[in-house]
Structure formats: structure tokens, C-alpha cells
């Protein structure tokens, strides 16, 4: 019987990752959480950016909507983030639909879409900074109520690690599954040749908007986790350009429009970036962002299809140049 590596390898990885807290230190778990969150967010960005081919430079818009919604609802009416996350996801879906409609209706794609998303995210930074109800520039704290699973607050990092591990595993499973279904092929068709897709009866506007809404919901849920894990959010650190750039960076380095690319990008880059930040951060505060910039330029110049793309090309060559 032939081993199906695309099933066995992810399951083996999942088992290893699930066992990690048994022997890992708190710091290793922290790195694990950062890697998984990055992998999760990049995979969410990749649905729109990789599969549907629309590159958002302002995906922090949705991260921030999720984070602020759940945190605000918890602070004001004590609503548990377990429910608040779905309210945040709903808001993100509405905003995502609106943005998608706004842009794709008139065919504002490619560079235009990038400009619009970056401007919208930045507008939110200024808007929230000026809203005292949302804590203004100071941001919002997730008030610590002690270890309370019902309110998504936990002592130590193990529980957070498992939450983001499950979120990431579910998301990757979903992407793996749906990329081989009708909607996945529709997205790729729209990305590769819009006119041809349209001629074959694909509603390209609907497909793009749907990809954006799904991506927005995924990102907003990640934003809720972000807020619960860091217990503090402010306009710059959730709506700013930092998170936006990281989401797309891992996806691009790993391989756009591939199931595993974004996760591979995060696994490779986040530990290096964290090492740079912790060892050089005192004297050299932009170290990890500088590294990201260099990686992005080099990848675009020398391997624009990312790591997975490179591996696929090599694989094809090994098999004798058949596509």
C-alpha cells in the first residue's frame, strides 16, 4: 500500500506539536504560540491573497476588528470572548463584504486593491485612536480575572498553545479540503484568467467577495486570540502595518496559493525573527522587521514562488521536466 504523505505527514506533525507542552519550557511554548498564530494568520491571508490572487496590504483591519470587538464586549458587558469572537467575526464579515464590494465591483484590483486596503487599515488606526470609548491611543486591556477557561483566560501558556494549535489545524484542514473543491478551483480560475472564468459561468465578483469575507472572518478570530494572549491591544499593534506585513510575508515566503506554504514560512521565519528581537532588540529595535524586509526583497527577486514553489519546480525537474 502506498503511504499517502499528504495525510501522514500533517498528522505526524500534529501529534508532535500536541506533545510539545510535555517537555517544553515556557519560553519554547511562547515561541510555539507565536509560530502557530503567524501560521494561522498567514494561512487566512493566503485564502484571499494566494488562492483568489488579491493581495491585501491592510489585513490588520480584520485582525483589529476581531481583537477590539471581543475585548470591548468583555470590558463593557462581561461577555466571554468565546462568544465575543463570533461577534467580531460577524463584524469582520460585514466589513469584508463592504470592502470587497467597494473594490471588486469596479474591478479595482492588483495595485488598487493593495492601496485601498492599506488606506482602510490606516484609517482605522486613526479612528480608534480618537475614540475614547475604545481606549483611544492607550488601547484596551483584557482585565485579568484569574484562571477562568469560560472567559478564555488561563494561567501559563499551555492552554493558549493548544487553542491556537487547534485553530491552525482546523484552518489548514479546511484549506486543504476546500482548495480541492469547487470553490477552491473557482478562486484559482478567477486568479489565473478572469475572462475565461467568467465565460465558463463563474461569478467572479461573488467568488472574490466570498474569498475576502472568509479570509476576514479567519483573521478576526485570530485577532481575538491575539488580544487574549497578549491581554493588551492598541490601535497601532493590531490595526497597524506590522501585522499586515507579517501575514503576507509568511505566505509569500512559504508559497502563495499553497496549503502548507504560509505555515512553512511562519515556522522558518518566526523563530529567527524572535531570536533577532530578543538578542538584538535592546540596541537594535527594528532588527526583526529589517530581516523581514530583506527576506521579502530576496524572495521576490530570486524565488517568487516561495519555498513550496521552489520545491515543486525541483521535483518536476527531477521527474524529467514534465509539468
Amino acid at each position, binding site marked *: 500500500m502506498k503511504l499517502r504523505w499528504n495525510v501522514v505527514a500533517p498528522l505526524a506533525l500534529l501529534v508532535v506539536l500536541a506533545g510539545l507542552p510535555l517537555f517544553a519550557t515556557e519560553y519554547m511554548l511562547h515561541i510555539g504560540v507565536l509560530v502557530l498564530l503567524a501560521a494561522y494568520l498567514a494561512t487566512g491571508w493566503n485564502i484571499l491573497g494566494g488562492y483568489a*490572487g488579491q493581495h491585501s496590504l491592510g489585513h490588520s483591519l480584520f485582525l483589529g476588528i476581531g481583537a477590539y470587538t471581543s475585548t470591548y464586549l468583555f470590558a463593557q458587558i462581561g461577555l466571554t470572548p468565546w462568544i465575543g469572537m463570533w461577534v467580531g467575526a460577524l463584524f469582520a464579515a460585514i466589513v469584508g463584504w463592504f470592502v470587497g464590494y467597494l473594490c471588486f465591483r*469596479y474591478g479595482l484590483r492588483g495595485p488598487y486593491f493593495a492601496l485601498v486596503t492599506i488606506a482602510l487599515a490606516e*484609517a482605522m488606526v486613526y479612528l480608534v485612536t480618537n475614540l475614547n470609548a475604545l481606549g483611544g491611543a492607550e488601547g484596551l486591556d483584557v482585565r485579568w480575572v484569574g484562571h477562568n477557561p469560560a472567559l478564555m483566560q488561563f494561567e501559563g501558556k499551555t492552554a493558549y498553545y493548544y487553542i491556537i494549535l487547534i485553530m491552525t489545524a482546523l484552518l489548514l484542514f479546511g484549506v486543504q479540503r476546500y482548495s480541492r473543491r469547487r470553490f477552491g478551483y473557482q478562486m484559482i480560475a478567477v486568479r489565473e484568467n478572469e475572462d475565461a472564468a467568467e465565460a465558463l459561468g463563474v461569478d467572479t465578483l461573488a467568488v472574490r467577495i466570498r474569498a475576502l469575507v472568509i479570509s476576514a472572518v479567519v483573521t478576526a478570530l485570530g485577532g481575538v486570540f491575539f488580544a487574549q494572549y497578549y491581554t493588551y491591544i492598541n490601535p497601532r499593534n493590531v490595526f497597524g502595518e506590522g501585522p499586515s*506585513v507579517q501575514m503576507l510575508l509568511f505566505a509569500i515566503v512559504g508559497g502563495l496559493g499553497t496549503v502548507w506554504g504560509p505555515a512553512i514560512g511562519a515556522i522558518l521565519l518566526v523563530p529567527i525573527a524572535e531570536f533577532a528581537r530578543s538578542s538584538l532588540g535592546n540596541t537594535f529595535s*527594528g532588527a526583526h*522587521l*529589517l530581516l523581514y524586509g530583506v527576506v*521579502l526583497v530576496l524572495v521576490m*527577486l530570486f524565488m517568487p514562488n516561495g519555498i513550496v514553489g521552489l520545491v515543486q519546480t525541483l521535483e518536476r525537474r527531477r521527474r524529467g521536466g514534465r509539468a
Partner: protein
Amino acid sequence: MTFSPELIAQSIITGIMIGGVFALISVGLSLIWGVMRIINFAHGEFLMVAMYIAYFLVARGGWDPYATLLVTTPALFLLGALIFRGTIRPILGHPSMNQIMLTVGLSLILQNLALVFFKADVLTTRTEYTRMILSIGPVIIRVPQLIAFIGSALTAFLLYWYLQRTDTGRAIRAAAQNKQAATLMGVDVQRIYLLAFGIGSATLGVAASLMISFYYTSPTVGLFFGLIAYVVVVLGGLGNFLGTLVAGLIIGLTESVGAAILPGSLSRVLTFALFILVLLFRPQGLFGGKRA
């Protein structure tokens, strides 16, 4: 809040002055787009580099702020040309997303290099012009802002004249309109691209020297001006030269009048709201998407 007519008049004057500078900053971005269909997401960071050059010449070298033009303009032309030659030209035929991401990477590099070399400090320089004002009735005009406005208008006019009336300018416009046809007519399109990228960047050198008397420098200053430029070029219609100039003035007025009537930095939100409204009703920009 009370809105006195003087306050409104004052904010309109200031808005026009600042809008002129916004227009100059955006014209280069629009030119580069018009010629080679690339949005340089490091545009704001190029301006930041120019502002540091101008700052050090003035603060450490004791230069007259406007004399720094002689350094910032060629320096930025060179920076633009080198970056184009080294990183953008090799991937000109690639999907536009690759070029976007490459320039995003460049902006991260420049921003964080500035952070390494100059720390996060906000640097301001007080020149002999900084405190000069002209009073017209109740309205005050700050001389450095007036000079910046006039300088921006002159530069934009020169650039427009260059594009319309000189042979090289015509070649640039030809390359923008139809690359193949221009090549057949003997235009060296690669050289034109290099030139356009250099000129588009050099305008930022002019802008930096004009602003250094009244605006601060910091590693993240490019973020703000970059965003302003993106909003302005979309508003004016990407690649539309005159549209960009008018849009610059509109955004200057929005920011300035907004700041006078709204609390905090909400005027910035007004700018983005205007941006979204234009996208809703005139996505091709206020003045159409035609190229200059």
C-alpha cells in the same frame, strides 16, 4: 466649539500651502505608475531618506535649508535609479504583486535602517525661516510653508513642461502610452524607465528640502507621507498628472480644515472617509484615469 471665519480662512490658507507639498510628493508616485505600472510602496521611505539628508546638512552642516536642494535632488535621483536598476528592473515582467511586495520589502528595510542609525528620535531643526510669518489681516502665512508651496508649484510646473515639451519628456510619455510602439520608434524604453523612476524619486528630494524648515524627521515619517501620497494618487486618478496636483490640494484642505473643526487627529479620518467616498462613486479618481 466656535468656528470663527478667521479660523476657517486660516485653515484654508494653511491647507493650500500643505496641499501643494502633498501634490509634489504624490506627483512622483503617479509618474512612476503612469510610465511603468508600478506603485512604489517605499515612496514615503524615499522621502524619509531625503529628509534625513536635508536635516543633517542643515543641523550639522549649517546649510541654508533651501540650498540642500542641490544635494537632496540628485541624491534621490540616484537612490531611485539605483534601486530601480538593482531590484525593480530584474522583475519588470513579473506579476504586479511581485513588484508591490518587493517595494514593501524595501520600505521595511529603509525604515528600520533609519531606526538603527538614527534611533526613534523625532528630529526638528529650527532655521532662520522657521519663525517668519506674513500677516494679511487676521490671517497668518508662515513663510516656510509659503516657500514650500511656491517651490512645489514651480517644480510641478517644470516637470510638466519637461514631460510636454522636451524630446525626453515626449519619449517618457510615449513609453507610458505604448511600450511596443515607443520601442519601434527608437525609444530606449529601459533607459526611459530608469529615468522616470529617478525623476519620480528626485521630486521627493525637492519636497524634503522644502519641508525641512517646518516639518520633523523620524524613521516613520515616510509612513504618513506615503499614505497621503497613495490617497492623493487614487483621488487624482492613477497616472493623471494634473489630477494628482488638484487632489493634493484637496487633501491638504481636508486635513487642515478638518484639524480646525474636529478634535484630535480625526481630520485624518476625514481624509480616509473622502477616499472611500471617491472609491464608491468615482473609482477611476476624481479626474478620470487618463495618463498625462
